[in-house]
Each structure stands twice: as C-alpha cells, then as structure tokens.
C-alpha cells in the first residue's frame, strides 16, 4: 500500500472558518498559500487550485507526512497561465527542513530540477502556456544512486542521477508550487488531480500516469444513522455541501455512534481503473477533552474502520485512504465504489 495523498481540489480555500477567516481547506494541506483560489478544473464540472505568484515565503500547497520517505512518485495536472518568468511546480523538503528539491519551469517553458540551489538538469522540451499538462516526478533519495526524473504526459523529459540527498535527510514534505519558508518569486500556477505515492507495497508503487481525482458527495441515507442532525433533517444532507457549512452538521451523543451514507455514482467511463478511494471528513469536537473520529467504508455487509484520529476544537480535515476494496482486499471497481457507503464513527 503506497498511495499517500490525493487531491482533486473540489474545495474552496477561501471558505470561512469559525473566525471568519479563509479556512484554506481546513488543514487538508499542511500548508497552503493564503491567496490560493478555487478555479475551473481541466475537465468539465471539475475544479482546480490556483496558487498565486509567490512574493514572500508562504509557499504553495504542501503536505508533511508522518513517516519520512526515500522513494516517491507524485503527479499533477499543471497549467501555467503565462510564461512571463520562472515558476516552481513541485517541491520536496527533507527531514532537516534544509535540503529542498524543486521542479521549476523557466520563461522558455523548459523544466529543470534543482536540489539545494543547484540546477541538476534542464529538459530539452518545453511546456506551453495556457494548457494543462500532466507532469510527474520520481525522486529517489540517495547520496550515490539517487534519481530525479520528470515525465510530461507520460514521456520522460529529463533524468538526473547521482547525489540527490546533498547531505540532508529523507523526504518529509511534498507539494505543489514553492515550499513554505522559502522566498520564491514565481508565476501563478494552476494544479488539478494531484497524487503522491511511494515505491513500497504492491499497488500504486510507481508512476500512476495521467489520472483524475473525482469528488463524490453523500446523496442518501446509508445503513447507519446514529448521529443527530442539526438543523433537524436528513443526516446525509447536513454534510454534503460543496463548501463546508459549519452551521449544518451531524453530532454524536455517545461513543461508537456511526453514520454511513450513500454517495453519488462516479461519472461514466468506458474501462475504468480505480486506483484508490480517500474518505474526507471535516469535523471538530464540542469542547476541550479527548474525542476522536474514524472514517468508515461499508463495502458489502461489513463496515471497515480507519484508525481513530483526535479531533480539534476547530474544524479540521481527516483523511483515510483505502487503496483497495477492503471487502476481499481486491482492486476497487466502479460498481463497488458506487455500491459502497462511506461515513464516520465517534471514537
């Protein structure tokens, strides 16, 4: 199992939190530029993330993982509205937070990899402004046999080998645009359909290619309805907004209570290959003290639980990935996703 994070950017960074400030995804990313915007995506009826030109050190979209990594793949659909300067597309930061790897593009559209301030290689091909390209990065962290490889639309554009560690540690944080804490004067860049995986396990352990990340929302009651809806009504209808509404929620009254919901079906695809499912819950606790939730999948007759996560007093995002259908540990199919229920449990 090696899928670490996905994001289809079907959420609005500028939605307001409890303090009437931009919620920036309620912590879905560890760090997000405060000027990030939701924009139309690369498919009809989809959204994308626009990271503005960075004139300070706020960085772009960054995800810090609990476990450090040595060999990762990540990809995203990338669009440069213009090529009027240099831009940072991807970043990887090591455990010391000192050695940074960047994938950049210059005003000629050429792509380069930069480790610790040194450009290792520049591509011979150029990306054009104003179009979506699917760009992927392979990063193998090693002082001797390291690899940094870039694919654009499935074709290798550059490969740098040798010392990719540069005296630093393993990889810890990954993301889009510039890294937080680093001054980066760049262009605005648009991103969609982001994935991050490592080389471990038996699934999703290599280039995933041009993928899409679709967001489904609850559209009906499932097999479990134990939490209380506020305002009164259908539980599923209190958690299914495109933009999180903090005044419209379900709430537990006892530990162990569960809600599972039916979800809208996936859009039609001729021969779909489903690589994973990520349950996303925005939740908080009502007071100081210990409280947890765990995300749920009900596939077949069984409810499968993710690890319990502690709640904060502020709304926060809780993510759980099921790379395969837990009902049999087999690859997800379109019909299995459509038939499954997803939900939460007060733990």
């Amino acid at each position, binding site marked *: 199992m090696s*899928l670490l994070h996905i994001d*289809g950017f*079907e959420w609005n960074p500028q939605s307001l939190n409890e303090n009437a400030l931009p919620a920036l995804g309620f912590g879905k990313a560890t760090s997000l530029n405060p000027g990030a915007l939701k924009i139309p995506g690369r498919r009809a009826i989809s959204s994308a993330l626009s990271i503005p030109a960075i004139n300070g050190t706020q960085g772009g979209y960054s995800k810090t993982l609990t476990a450090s990594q040595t060999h990762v793949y990540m990809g995203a659909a990338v669009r440069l509205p213009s090529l009027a300067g240099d831009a940072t597309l991807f970043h990887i930061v090591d455990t010391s937070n000192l050695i940074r790897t960047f994938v950049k593009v210059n005003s000629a559209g050429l792509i380069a990899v930069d480790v610790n301030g040194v450009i290792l290689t520049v591509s011979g091909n150029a990306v054009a402004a104003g179009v979506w390209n699917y760009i992927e990065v392979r990063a193998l962290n090693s002082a001797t046999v390291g690899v940094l490889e870039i694919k654009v639309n499935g074709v290798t554009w550059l490969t740098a080998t040798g010392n990719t560690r540069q005296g630093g540690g393993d990889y810890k944080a990954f993301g889009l645009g510039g890294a937080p804490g680093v001054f980066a004067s760049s262009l605005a860049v648009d991103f969609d359909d982001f*994935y991050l995986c490592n080389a471990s396990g038996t699934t999703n352990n290599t280039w*995933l*290619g*041009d*993928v*899409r*990340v*679709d*967001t*489904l*929302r*609850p559209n009906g009651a499932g097999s479990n309805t134990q939490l209380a809806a*506020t305002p009164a009504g259908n539980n599923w209808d209190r*958690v*299914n*907004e495109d933009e*999180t*509404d*903090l005044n419209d*929620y*379900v*709430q*537990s*009254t006892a530990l162990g209570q569960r809600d599972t919901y039916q*979800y809208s079906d*996936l859009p039609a695809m*001729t*021969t*779909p*290959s*489903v*690589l*994973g*499912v*990520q*349950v*996303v*819950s*925005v*939740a*908080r*606790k*009502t*007071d*100081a*003290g*210990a*409280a*947890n939730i765990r995300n749920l999948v009900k596939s077949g007759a069984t409810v499968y639980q993710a690890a319990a996560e502690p709640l904060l007093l502020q*709304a926060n995002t809780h993510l759980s990935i099921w790379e395969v259908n837990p009902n049999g540990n087999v690859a*997800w199919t*379109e019909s299995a*996703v459509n038939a499954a229920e*997803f*939900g*939460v449990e*007060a733990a």
Partner: protein
Amino acid sequence: MADARADQQAVETLASAAPQRGLLQQSAEVLAREQALRLYGQETETLARPAPDMRLAHIAVEALSLPHPLARIMAQAVEVIWREAATPDILVWQHNWVAEVRERLEFRTDVLTARDGQ
C-alpha cells in the same frame, strides 16, 4: 452572597457565548444534577426550585464540560483516483492544411501555365 452573584454572572456570560446550549440541555438533565450542583457549591435542595435554577444547573454542566466532548462532522466527501484503462477517445479539430496547400500549388501552377502560354 457576593460569590453567588459572581457565579451567576459568569454562568450567564457563558450561556450567551454558547450557541450549542440547547443541544446539551437534555443531556445535562439526564447526566448530573449533583455534578452541576457540586460545581457551583449549591445544596441539593436548590434543585427543588423551579426553572431559573435548573437553567443555571444546565449551563454549569455545559460550561464545565460533559464527561467527553461530542464529535461534530460538518462535511464529508470521497475522492476517487482513477483513469481510463483503455485508450481514451480522441477528438481532433486540426485544420486540413494539406488540402489547402495543394489548392494553392494548383493555383500557382495554373498561373505559371498561363504565363508559359503567353
């Protein structure tokens, strides 16, 4: 007496800042008359009084927390990463440049032929 007034004022302040009070009221009734009273140093007999003091007891329980906080879920979604396994359909809008070039060449040939004939 002064302490009691201060307690009441503090509790009312908490009440005005706690929009969820109504939700918790029912739980408070079930949970802990004695607990609420203990928190505010009142005697059990106080509970026998009508509504205003019961309200204080409810608020006291809320303000000082139930045995465990409640979980509140504001939004849920599922993100699915997938792709087309077969070759996706291909749409082409390219202009037929070859035909246009041939047309132009033929025109030039005509012109040249006419000139040759002169």
